[in-house]
């Protein structure tokens, strides 16, 4: 039993979504297969491009120039990265991302740290720590994953701004609230009005008010609007541990886009291998409920999420890529990835591409230290975009040849 499409994309994370949307927009028939959801619902929805090298990076665009040649950004060139980020912004224009590649902004973390990122949705961007003035940090008593006290005291200790922590009750909401519980409940206008009133009573003259990033899912804008109205000042969101509510907003925006652009999806099915074909790979073997199927295509984008996403298996002896069985070059756990050429095709030990019709994207791409650099999301967007561009061009070639 085989299925066919112009291009098969593996992975429903940020990289796979960008690639699939880009391809579908260009008119390709796209089949997306993923063993599970990607990690968008885990990561804060700010868009990191390059936050650190040997120290903090103030401009991702400038910082990119001094990366080693094997770094994905260096391979793609900053022009492509810029195009990709612009594509991202226009794709999810409903989320209204702020910022750009010229300057990083510093946003607060749940531990009162300074996180450097290129772009962020408005409610997060409003938390910019380089803006002067006093802030109030609001915790919710029964919420286990946010401590206003830690955030506020650490921010103040940093000296840049004065922060005051307050903790309020979320009326009638129970004793154990996860991020999602609050995000869902706060969508009730009455409940958020109550919360707003409680907060107003204890924030004094603070100029901005920071909340954990749980200000609503679908009704996010209404929630922020109402709170700002009640409090009479700007409200911002602070990134939390998973589940990441802003991440979920991004993830559902992209899921809707994939659907409306006509991407066909199979979520929950794992790709276990491939069958060879003319360009290297002829099809991917996909495990359904009881049978394996072959998904055939002219081109393949593998955006399988690296070690965490399931794209790379770390064994006792070897570390290998899970779909094509590629060997992963030695390196620290945090930077394991497939070696690729400038078109994101995987390289063999000799340094030549081993599969012509496969492009890798996202966290499975090697050559970076994504955690140390705070560059993963930028790499996902840029490689997802470029992979689609490469595939698009190749699919067009095939079409012409036919």
């Amino acid at each position, binding site marked *: *039993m*085989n*299925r*066919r499409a112009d291009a098969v994309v593996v992975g429903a994370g940020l990289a796979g979504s960008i690639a699939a949307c880009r391809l579908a927009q260009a008119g390709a028939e796209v089949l997306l297969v*993923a*063993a*599970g*959801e*990607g*990690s968008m*619902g*885990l990561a804060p929805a700010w868009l990191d491009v390059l936050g650190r090298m040997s120290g903090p990076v103030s401009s991702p665009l400038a910082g990119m120039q001094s990366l080693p040649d094997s770094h994905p950004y260096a391979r793609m060139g900053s022009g492509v990265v810029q195009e990709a980020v612009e594509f991202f912004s226009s794709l999810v224009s409903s989320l209204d991302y702020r910022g750009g590649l010229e300057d990083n902004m510093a946003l607060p973390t749940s531990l009162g740290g300074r996180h450097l990122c290129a772009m962020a949705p408005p409610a997060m961007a409003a938390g910019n720590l380089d803006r002067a003035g006093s802030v109030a940090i609001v915790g919710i008593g029964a919420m286990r994953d946010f401590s206003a006290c830690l955030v506020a005291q650490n921010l103040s200790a940093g000296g840049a701004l004065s922060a005051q922590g307050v903790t309020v009750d979320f009326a009638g909401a*129970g004793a154990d609230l*996860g991020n*999602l519980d609050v995000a*869902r409940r706060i969508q009730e206008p009455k409940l958020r009005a109550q919360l707003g009133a409680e907060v107003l009573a204890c924030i004094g003259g603070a100029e901005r008010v920071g909340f954990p990033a749980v200000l609503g899912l679908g009704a996010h804008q209404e929630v922020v609007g109402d709170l700002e109205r009640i409090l009479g000042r700007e409200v911002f969101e602070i990134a939390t541990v*998973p*589940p990441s509510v802003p991440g*979920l907003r991004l993830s559902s925006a992209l899921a*809707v886009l994939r*659907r409306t652009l006509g991407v*066909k*999806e*199979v*979520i*929950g*099915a*794992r790709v276990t291998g491939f069958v060879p074909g003319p360009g290297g790979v002829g099809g991917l073997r*996909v*495990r*359904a*409920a*009881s*049978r394996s*199927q072959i998904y055939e295509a002219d081109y393949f984008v593998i955006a399988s*999420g690296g070690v*965490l*996403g*399931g794209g790379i298996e770390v064994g006792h002896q070897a570390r290998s890529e899970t779909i094509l069985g590629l060997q992963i070059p030695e390196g620290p756990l945090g930077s394991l990835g497939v070696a690729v050429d400038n078109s994101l095709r995987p390289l063999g030990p000799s340094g030549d591409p081993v599969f012509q019709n496969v492009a890798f994207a996202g966290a499975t791409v090697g050559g970076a230290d994504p955690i140390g650099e705070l560059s993963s999301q930028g790499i996902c967007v840029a490689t997802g975009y470029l992979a689609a561009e490469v595939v698009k061009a190749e699919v067009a070639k095939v079409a012409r040849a036919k």
Partner: protein
Amino acid sequence: MRDEVVASTDGCVKCTICEQACPVAAVTDLFPGPKYVGPQAERFRHGDSVDRSVEYCSGCGACSVVCPQGVAVAELNIRARAQIPRSRRETLRNLALGDTESVARLAGLVPGVANALLGNRAVRRVAQWLAGVHRLAPLPAFAPRRSVRSFWTKSPGEGVPVVYFPGCSTSWYEPWLGEMVVAVLERNGISAQIAAGRCCGLPAQSNGFFGLAARRVARIAKELGAPVAKGTPVLASSTSCALMLMSEAKDVLGIESDPVLRLAEATWDVSEFLLDLHRQGRLDQKGLSPISRRVYYHPPCQQRRHLSGRPALELLALIPGVEIIESTQYCCGIAGTYGLKAEKYEVAMEVGRGLFSEIADSSPEVVACDSETCRWQITHASGVPSVHPVELLYESYGLSGARRPLRQDAKRKSARR
């Protein structure tokens, strides 16, 4: 060797993706979420059942589908739920809902009487009080004996052989659907042998009767052993039966016998099969005549666990004139027999709320959905008639003979208040 499902807990990195996807935890505090009762609790259970918090898991399987780490969350939870000690009354209620085949065999003898009773408000009130079946819950109506007879006497016709597994719903409630399936297959050169009317065991399993469920599956595997050995595909139009035969028998019940594993490999959802025909260029696409209708398509949770995409949607798209609205919602809430239970009815309705309002907003003429229990729930809650996607193909092919009795839907609607 370590049990595969239990061993899959090793994969859990606590990432919360399953919690994000769980439709039940999203609407009620009665359920603490799939991770909490699943991979987390499992490390402590040690064969004991000390936690009732898993009770409100509906078994919809969203958690297993979205988990990128391959943790069999739903399977763990269904197993754990089966371990909960129950009162006699609860056990009886669950048996009545779980042993659908025996109940249907009895009631099917006197469908008119059964339907009259189940449609009677007073009786339903008593049933809720006595048996814990919610008085408003969308119980199916037994088909008139005439339509049942008409289905079972249908001849397979000419063509490539397959086996059609009708399951309880077609055998006793919606025999016309079986007739339509067989006719649509025949139209495409497939000769469907109708398998005996059997319960696949899923209701028994989800109500905690693993032994009964295992016997049900084993019996089917035995009965279908010969055609399966010959490589004949087994088709189901009920997504839950297909799921049971394809994967749950092994993953939840832990049956690893050869006949059951072979049956699993042979089993197809009917739409997946038809779409595969189409991909091979063997589906009569030209014969599909236009139906101008606004159809809302909802893939049921069990169907998503077939891991085959949305074949019915692709099939419907082949019908000229049909305007399709694709559901963006995960679950209607019913989850087989979950939403029938008095204590869970409200939760199930709340789970389905997003779906029902999406349906209302898109004002379709009909809802297409591959699972019978979902169709019953959807029509119950939204008032919009619902059909199996094959019913639309049947209509589009201009086939006739089998007919869905109209009053079925009307009745369901009237039972809402």
